[in-house]
């Protein structure tokens, strides 16, 4: 092979490599009508468990949340109900709108963060730890009030930069395996990973009861699971990256009905 020929082979190899990267970089969003909730990937038994309120273990958490809603807390000795009244009226549709923009913080906040902001500012109570039982019962109770309502986060000039940041995270290859979320959840959701369906990653039922966890968990817990699996240095609970990703995922699932408290395998 001459030097010219050798150079040509190298160039062709580079073009091939670039083309294969571009293929995944061009990953298209799932068309709206092809979107499926994780519910549709589940087996008959797990669906039945979610559908029956007396078999759905997430309802235990919702009932605890109903009690926590009435409980006075903090030095202000106020309960959630003292300000918000009957949750079935005041909290209807609220969970479907989160993460929502918080003017004081100048960025979107998650439902769990909103609960803790209320605790700090209204109840003057210490923040509840991420994934703590009480925080999850409150977000499950608030989420339950929006069951069946379409997911509808507000995208305007204030939230758009955060949506774009979340979208960028979803499409960015990261970690030791050099994976992006989109490679599984946009391109390969019809496939299986170690025997389990990959799913489209629509956050339709959080906080939810996951059989694998034997308990309730928030969307951030699920995201951190996936991120660990991708061998990426994880983001702490409440990190702006996770909130932006939550916002992008909720926008991506816009119009799909909320199932809280969902059951997942």
């Amino acid at each position, binding site marked *: 092979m001459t030097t010219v020929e050798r150079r040509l082979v190298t160039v062709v190899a580079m073009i091939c490599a670039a083309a294969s990267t571009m293929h995944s970089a061009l990953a298209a969003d799932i068309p709206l009508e092809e979107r499926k909730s994780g519910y549709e990937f589940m087996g008959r038994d797990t669906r039945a*468990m979610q559908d*029956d*309120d*007396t*078999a759905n*273990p997430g*309802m*235990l958490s919702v*009932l*605890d949340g109903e009690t926590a809603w009435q409980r006075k807390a903090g030095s202000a000795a106020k309960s959630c109900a003292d300000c918000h009244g009957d949750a079935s009226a005041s909290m209807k549709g609220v969970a479907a709108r989160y993460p929502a923009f918080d003017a004081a913080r100048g960025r979107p906040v998650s439902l769990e963060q909103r609960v803790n902001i209320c605790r700090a500012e209204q109840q003057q109570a210490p923040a509840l730890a991420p994934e703590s039982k009480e925080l999850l019962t409150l977000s499950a109770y608030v989420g339950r009030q929006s069951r069946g309502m379409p997911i509808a986060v507000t995208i305007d000039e204030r939230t758009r930069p955060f949506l774009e940041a979340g979208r960028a995270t979803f499409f960015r290859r990261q970690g030791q395996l050099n994976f992006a979320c989109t490679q599984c959840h946009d391109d390969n959701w019809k496939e299986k990973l170690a025997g389990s369906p990959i799913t489209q990653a629509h956050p339709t039922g959080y906080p939810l009861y996951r*059989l694998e966890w*034997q*308990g309730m968990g928030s969307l951030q817990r699920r995201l951190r699971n996936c991120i660990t699996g991708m061998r990426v240095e994880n983001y702490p609970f409440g990190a702006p990256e996770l909130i932006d990703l939550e916002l992008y995922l909720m926008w991506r699932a816009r119009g799909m009905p909320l199932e809280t408290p969902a059951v997942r395998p």
Partner: protein
Amino acid sequence: MARTLINVPKTAKKGEIIAIKTLISHEMETGFRHDNMGKAIPRDIISLFVCTYNGQEIFRAELHPAIAANPFIAFSTVATASGTLEFKWTGDNGFSATEQATITVE
């Protein structure tokens, strides 16, 4: 008191087979796990579930460490007379929970 969810039909015909579903919140800590410091986490499970129908025992289940958290137990019985179904869970560390449901048999 542990949170429970009971599903018993309010009414039934005499002789009808009725489905009963019970769910109780419980950690069901197996006793086989260790914490971050390597210390064994002691076992804490529900070990017995009993259902009585107007005082007569109709169902009993022994639970073991392999049972998942928040045990869901479903079974059936024959509706014989109007009255009360009583559910009792007992377990480690003096755990005890009781629930009742009434049924009208026509």
